[in-house]
């Protein structure tokens, strides 16, 4: 009995945060945000019409992660990294002093975040090669082979929130192509 308590407590506490990350995994790459599944190692930008009008632009078949947990501050670019076939490079265009951030979230550890430093314009490198998860400058080392990637960039003032070009998009490419 006591062993069962300990086991149940440990498992539940350990994985308590994980379901939400699994939800990200299911929503981002498998369900997409209105245009079908998002392949691994592909970044998908939140549709600008959805950002401008989150209540009526939502597709019934798409994930609702972009419109729940209300956040109307930043335009999201999301993707699921699979680094098993090599490191990837994130290219950040000139944001013209606009705020942006890059965040990696582990599937197994729940809401643990590693942030990349901002030195726009920047090329960031995501790799699994180092022994300790870390971020230094533009490197995110020792990421797990699979993790969620979320890039946020600030959207300009409200007058510019009408559908249109809200901000330049980041790109993800194999590091060998750099």
């Amino acid at each position, binding site marked *: *009995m*006591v*062993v*069962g*308590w*300990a*086991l*149940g*407590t*440990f*498992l*539940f*506490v*350990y994985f*308590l*945060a994980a379901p*939400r*990350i699994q939800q*990200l995994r299911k929503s981002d790459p498998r369900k997409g945000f209105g245009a079908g599944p998002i392949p691994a190692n592909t970044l998908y930008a939140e549709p600008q019409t959805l950002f*401008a*009008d*989150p*209540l009526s632009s939502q597709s019934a078949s798409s994930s609702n992660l972009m*419109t*729940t*947990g*209300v*956040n*109307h*501050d930043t335009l999201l670019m999301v993707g699921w990294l699979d680094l098993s076939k090599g490191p990837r490079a994130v290219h950040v265009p000139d944001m013209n002093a606009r*705020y942006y*951030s890059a*965040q990696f*979230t582990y599937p197994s*550890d*729940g*809401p*643990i*975040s*590693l*942030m990349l430093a901002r030195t726009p314009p920047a090329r960031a490198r995501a790799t699994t090669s180092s022994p300790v*998860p870390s971020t230094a400058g533009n490197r995110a080392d020792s990421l797990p082979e699979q993790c*969620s990637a*979320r890039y946020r960039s*600030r959207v*300009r*003032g*409200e007058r510019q929130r009408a559908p249109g070009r809200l901000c330049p998009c980041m790109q993800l490419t194999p590091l060998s192509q750099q």
Partner: protein
Amino acid sequence: MSRTYTFYFAALIGTICVVFIINLVFFEHARTVRNDVVQGILIGIGLAFASAQAYARIKATKVNGWITMFGLGVPGNGMLLRAAHAQYFPGPVNVPQEAMYWWANADGAGRTLSGAHDYIMHFPAGGLPPNDAFWSLTMGNAKNFYVQNPINRYSVGDRSGLVSNADGSVDIYIQHTGPEGHESNWLPAPSGNFILWLRVYIPGAAILDGTYTVPPVVKLK
């Protein structure tokens, strides 16, 4: 399930677990290995849920009705702290140096926020959230969804064109219908209960060291 009900649910689960354990210790039962394992895991899950809720309450900071937690998303957080954080701030939140988050479902006096009332949030001169990026105050309904409103405004912040008072202070009007003469500082609320989120990106030192206090949401008479 609202956060209030979640707390009561956790308290109920914890109580059931404690009663079950007392019953098990002080009364004789016919036991089998299978039953022990199943019951043990169920009790373990119940205890874990109640523990995470209790720990979240301990680790959360509540000032003026605003709830926040420090250390969100930091690599190296233990599993219990991660579980506690997930109770109040689920999802892939940023680390504190990147963003700090507060939410409130009650005004400064502890009364549930409702669109049936009008509220004001008063930032004294120089009292806007210190940051090196930007800040926002976002409205969510009781289920944390965006709220439909006639001006398509879902949040206000430093880029919203908020109009300061003559003394440099800033008032944000939080209500279901537009405040006459103060529409520029209006954050539309639903007719029912609602939740407010305050986010500060690249927060200043006063936020990170806990000395900055978010002003209360005050019900207007």
